């Protein structure tokens, strides 16, 4: 079994177009949720989101690329370029055969579906652009990353709704740990802030019209976000040998299925995933200092998640910190676990715990230290990242401070 470390990170989300800016926003407890600037928003009931602003694809891609890249692919490539540049790895030689890409997305090229449905249904045209299919497919982002960086090992996309990124990173972790690959590019992205994407979510009536306030008694739902985060997972001995900067170590992963309900979460399923990740990492619950919560801001998730944490950690649940950064960047659905892993890295490497902002009233059913509104300094040895998806699919990662 190899040890697995993170040697590169990149992101674009509502808070910033890079990791540095995102961590600054986490430290400041800044909210990136704004009024949505999208076509036909006046016909939406939900008009806020964690939207990426000032995004000009032409700065990063040429015309031929833009024709092929849906926004979720564009976000992924930008984040992957940052992560791989930071890692210092060059995949052009033999390493390219021993490295691959596993990314998460719930819905892939939603903007491409939306634009082209308009073309055929709303505008009544009988012809669409020839590249609609390669642009919208869920694996487009993973394939383009592999092409841009010569990554010729295992490459695929994982789609498990809100747990997609955590499932993807769990696969990448397993591949490096088992020795199957020496490095993996992993994370996830999502871009469904368009008329059809929001309209679909409105139907469930779980979205907030004003703010994402996880764990706060007056919370009234989730807020969607968009963007990507990508990491380089690398075999520890190789990273040490080449003197790479190690951001954190990945030490455990577990996944479970509730096998009960298509939308309602289960305390048992979540608790089994959390305790499974600890067991996989050979950790005692008392070793965990911080949990990046799934913390969607819905009534159902937040109380179920807190109950699961209380079950797994017992008295230690009252000593650890648990926060939801969705309050700042929104819920990136299939990309959310990747962006949230940045908060775990910040906790472990910088000793700064990202807050849960928008917190106004304590909820007795969420009576944990949710780091309300203001970031906190703390030395943390182990952090967990929770993701609990629609469909009852749970995936939890365990990270430790860099060795």
């Amino acid at each position, binding site marked *: 079994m190899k040890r697995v470390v993170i040697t590169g990170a990149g992101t674009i989300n509502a808070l910033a177009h890079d990791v540095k800016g995102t961590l600054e926003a986490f430290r400041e407890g800044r909210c990136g949720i704004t009024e949505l600037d999208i076509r036909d928003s006046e016909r939406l009931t939900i008009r806020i989101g964690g939207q990426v602003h000032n995004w000009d694809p032409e700065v990063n891609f040429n015309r031929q690329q833009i024709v092929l890249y849906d926004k979720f692919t564009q976000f992924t490539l930008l984040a992957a370029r940052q992560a791989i540049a930071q890692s210092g790895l060059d995949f052009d030689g033999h390493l390219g055969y021993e490295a691959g890409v596993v990314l998460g997305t719930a819905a892939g090229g939603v903007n491409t579906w939306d634009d082209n449905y308009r073309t055929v249904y709303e505008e009544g045209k009988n012809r669409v652009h020839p590249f609609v299919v390669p642009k919208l497919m869920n694996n487009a982002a993973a394939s383009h990353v592999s092409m841009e960086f010569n990554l010729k090992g295992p490459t695929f996309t994982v789609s498990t709704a809100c747990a997609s990124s955590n499932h993807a990173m769990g696969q990448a972790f397993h591949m490096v740990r088992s020795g199957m690959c020496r490095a993996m590019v992993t994370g996830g992205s999502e871009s469904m802030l368009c008329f059809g994407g929001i309209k679909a979510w409105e139907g469930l009536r779980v979205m907030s019209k004003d703010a994402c306030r996880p764990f706060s008694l007056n919370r009234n*739902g989730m807020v969607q976000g968009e963007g990507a985060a990508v990491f380089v997972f690398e075999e520890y001995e190789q990273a040490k040998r080449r003197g790479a900067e190690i951001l954190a170590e990945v030490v455990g992963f577990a996944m479970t299925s509730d096998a009960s309900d298509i*939308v*309602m979460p289960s305390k048992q399923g979540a608790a089994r995933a959390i305790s499974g990740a600890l067991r996989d990492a050979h950790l005692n619950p008392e070793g965990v200092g911080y949990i990046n919560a799934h913390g969607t801001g819905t009534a159902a998730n937040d109380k179920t998640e807190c109950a699961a944490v209380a079950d797994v950690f017992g008295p230690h649940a009252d000593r650890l910190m648990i926060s939801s950064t969705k309050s700042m960047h929104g819920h990136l659905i299939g990309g959310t676990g990747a962006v949230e892993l940045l908060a775990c890295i910040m906790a472990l490497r910088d000793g700064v715990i990202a807050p849960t902002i928008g917190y106004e009233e304590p909820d007795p059913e969420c009576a944990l230290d949710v780091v309300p509104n203001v970031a906190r300094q703390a030395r943390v040895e182990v952090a967990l990242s929770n993701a609990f998806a629609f469909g009852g699919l749970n995936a939890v990662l365990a990270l430790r401070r860099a060795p």
Partner: protein
Amino acid sequence: MTQTVKDRVIAILAEQAVMDVSDIRMEDTLDDLGLDSLGLVESIFAIEEAFDISVPFNANAPDKSGFDISSVAAIVTAVEGLVSEQAA
């Protein structure tokens, strides 16, 4: 159409609950009808479509939505209110 708002709301709830209209009592709660959160959200959608109204309902805060779902009678009253508001 001579069907009242009440009849139509009851028909919608009966269909969701897979029950006979005659088995639904005005004092029944959603629990009594065996309607879970998904069944409720679907019922509200069907009501909105049937009456061409917009029902203020957030599944996160059912009590604060301004749409009383405590019983079949309460739902009927709330829908009658929304329908008359729309006609006004």
